[in-house]
């Protein structure tokens, strides 16, 4: 059963019960009060009539100057009294020894035997409400001592109006209760329907997100709870979308890496296998041929070793404990440039090294040297013949800046964004240039080393060409790496 239908039925039931209980309770109390009041008034009137009769008898006795009136005289006074009351709202009837003495009066309701027996047999007044001739009467009865004799007086007061009014009120309450319950329940139905509408939209959005449409966002409308719910669902969807994108990106990278790695390993292995097979099956190999084939096998083996070394280095950069010490930039770069010299010779490249005087920095010498060597190696690979690789190093109060710029082919924004990813190798021209190896490991390794030094590495490529690698280190930071670079 739909929620709105449940709420509607519950509201309707509750409203009908509430309205009925309240209305009927008020009505019953009011009616009970009315009946009690009418009975009280009838009894008061009954007592008043009894007093009047006593007074009438006394008056008659004094008028006749008698000590006591005879039974017949009392009967005559009672008959006259009953006659005088005819047509009044209250009808009177007198009994002596359970026999009526005031004659029959059609206006007087028939007295129930049980009621009359109670009255005749007991001293206290009694009352009963009865229906007679389509009217309702309160019948009161009590004893009355007149001239030493015991009489019984009955009075009947018309209370039809009270019952008619009560019946009208009941009818009114029925109509009002049903109408008001229906109206209120309908209003509540509309209200609930409108209130729950955002929930339906949210439900629809969740279903679409679950089906894979992570870019969908739920509309934040309705009451605060629904807005919060939609907001949280949007946050969740955004988070899922980011994670999925990241996972996808990593998966793509890995796929590319595996493809490249397979390709890179397959090429030298094919060469090695081919030339080794020639050496194995050829009966006569000249010295020149053996040297040539051997050199190829050695070179290809070097490539494989370089590839495995880079991977091992990356793993070490992540896991090995570092040995930090204060380094002088000038002497440090001298060593780096000397080590990188063999890389420059093939393309006849030059390194321009400009170091601010007195610049020192805190680093693990071997690891940081590896970082710079990799950056320079990449710059070499990206450069054309006879170009210049510029190295700059300077410092301010808190930081030390390194900048290695080449004049090479540069990088696209996409390449810049992904260049430092572990397995990213997009441009074949950058992956392998003249026997150089670039499987996307170099810059990833550099970035990892910079991070271990609590530094950051940026890559930029101006439109006019060339690529600039900037590394910023903090001058002072703890070994526990608690101080973070900002």
């Amino acid at each position, binding site marked *: 059963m739909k929620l709105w239908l449940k709420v509607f039925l519950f509201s309707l039931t509750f409203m009908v019960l509430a309205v009925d209980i309240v209305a009927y309770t008020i009505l019953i109390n009011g009616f009970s009060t009315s009946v009690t009041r009418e009975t009280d008034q009838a009894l008061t009137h009954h*007592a008043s009539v009894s007093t009047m009769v006593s007074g009438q008898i*006394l008056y008659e006795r004094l008028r006749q100057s008698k000590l006591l009136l005879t039974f017949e005289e009392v009967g005559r006074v009672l008959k006259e009294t009953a006659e005088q009351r005819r047509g009044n709202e209250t009808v009177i009837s007198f009994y002596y020894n359970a026999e009526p003495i005031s004659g029959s009066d059609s206006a007087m309701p028939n007295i129930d035997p049980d009621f009359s027996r109670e009255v005749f047999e007991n001293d*206290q007044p*009694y009352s009963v409400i*009865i229906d007679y001739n389509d009217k309702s009467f309160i019948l009161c009865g009590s004893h009355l001592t007149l001239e*030493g004799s015991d009489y019984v007086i009955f009075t009947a007061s018309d209370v039809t109006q009270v019952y008619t009014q009560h019946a009208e009120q009941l009818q009114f309450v029925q109509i009002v209760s049903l109408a008001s319950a229906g109206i209120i329940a309908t209003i509540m139905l509309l209200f609930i329907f409108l209130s729950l509408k955002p929930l339906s939209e949210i439900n629809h959005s969740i279903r679409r997100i679950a089906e894979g449409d992570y870019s969908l966002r739920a509309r934040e409308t309705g009451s605060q709870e629904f807005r919060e719910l939609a907001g949280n669902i949007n946050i969740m969807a955004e988070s899922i979308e980011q994670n999925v994108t990241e996972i996808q990106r990593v998966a793509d990278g890995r796929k590319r890496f595996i493809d490249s790695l397979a390709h890179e390993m397959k090429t030298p292995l094919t060469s090695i296998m081919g030339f080794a097979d020639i050496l194995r099956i050829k009966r006569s190999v000249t010295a020149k041929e053996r040297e040539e084939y051997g050199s190829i096998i050695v070179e290809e083996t070097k490539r494989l070793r370089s590839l495995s070394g880079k991977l091992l280095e990356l793993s070490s950069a992540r896991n090995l404990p570092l040995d930090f010490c204060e380094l002088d930039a000038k002497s440090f770069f001298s060593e780096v440039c000397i080590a990188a010299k063999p890389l420059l010779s093939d393309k006849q490249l030059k390194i321009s090294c400009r170091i601010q005087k007195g610049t020192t920095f805190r680093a693990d010498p071997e690891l940081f040297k590896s970082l710079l060597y990799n950056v320079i190696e990449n710059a070499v690979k990206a450069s054309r013949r006879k170009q210049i690789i510029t190295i700059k190093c300077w410092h301010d109060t808190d930081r030390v800046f390194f900048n290695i710029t080449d004049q090479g082919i540069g990088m696209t924004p996409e390449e810049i964004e992904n260049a430092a990813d572990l397995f990213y190798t997009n441009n074949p021209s950058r992956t392998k240039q003249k026997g150089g190896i670039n499987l996307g490991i170099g810059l990833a390794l550099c970035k990892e080393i910079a991070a271990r030094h609590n530094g950051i590495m940026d890559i930029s490529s101006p439109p006019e060409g060339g690529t600039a690698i900037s590394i910023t280190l903090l001058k002072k930071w703890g070994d526990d790496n608690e101080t973070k670079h900002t």
Partner: protein
Amino acid sequence: MKRNILNITLSAVLIFVLIAGSLLIPRVLPQYKNQVTAHEAKDTARFKYINATDTLDIYPWDQYAPDSYTRRQNPMIEGTFLEAGELLLFHISDLFPQFLPQDEDIFAQSLYTESDGSGTLYIKDYSYNNIDGKSCLLNAAYEYGTLIYIRCRYSAQKELSKAQINQAGKALTENLRNINGWLYADGSVYMSPGDEFLPEGVINGDAAEISGLFMADYSLITPESKNPISSFFASFLPLLAAPPEYDYEIIWKEYEMLLTDYSVIYYDHYFIINVDTLNYSDDQSALYIFFDPIIGQIVGYSHHLL
């Protein structure tokens, strides 16, 4: 589809039950009919305002024949006049002291009787000044050693509105209600064995002295009572019991009164209270007491003994 049909059916049934229940509730509501209920007797004002069309001649004035009455100088009757005058003065001083005359001997001179000298002595509309100098009127009747009628009033009578009469009638009824029950005369009485009204300490079968005036619950009422009805009876019953020639037992029986049933009418500036008296001797008697609503006191009575 099946579930929708079930839901719709359930909803329809529920709505039908609600509407039917709402319409059927009145059938089970109480109507309070045909239930015989006992009640306490209503304490209503038990007096009747009579717009009298006839003149009421209260005993013994119904037998009064003014044309045949005279004041006789008969030595035998003169003694009776004096005795009646004394008793009248005695009653007024005890019961209605505010109407005591300045000259205490005047009443005997104003009494008259039938020309043959027998029967009842009357004094009618006798005007005199009380000890405060106010003009008063006296009506009285004396018969065989007993004052059977006495009624004092001030000459100037104020007229009361019907509302004032009703208000005074309610107050009077309240006072009557407060002393309803048995009243006992003062004196030595013979208590019968097993008498249910035997006071504490009285031995059955012995003559016993009972002092004061008691109600059914033996609470003492005195002439100083704030209730004018109690005050009146506290003085009135001992007065009736006082004559020494009466047998105490007879006095006891004659003047034991039942105030549980009484009738009151308003007539000629007064409330006339009819008190039912108990008749052990099967004698009929009627006691009417006159209550003046303006001064709030009983100002007379008519005691009819047969």
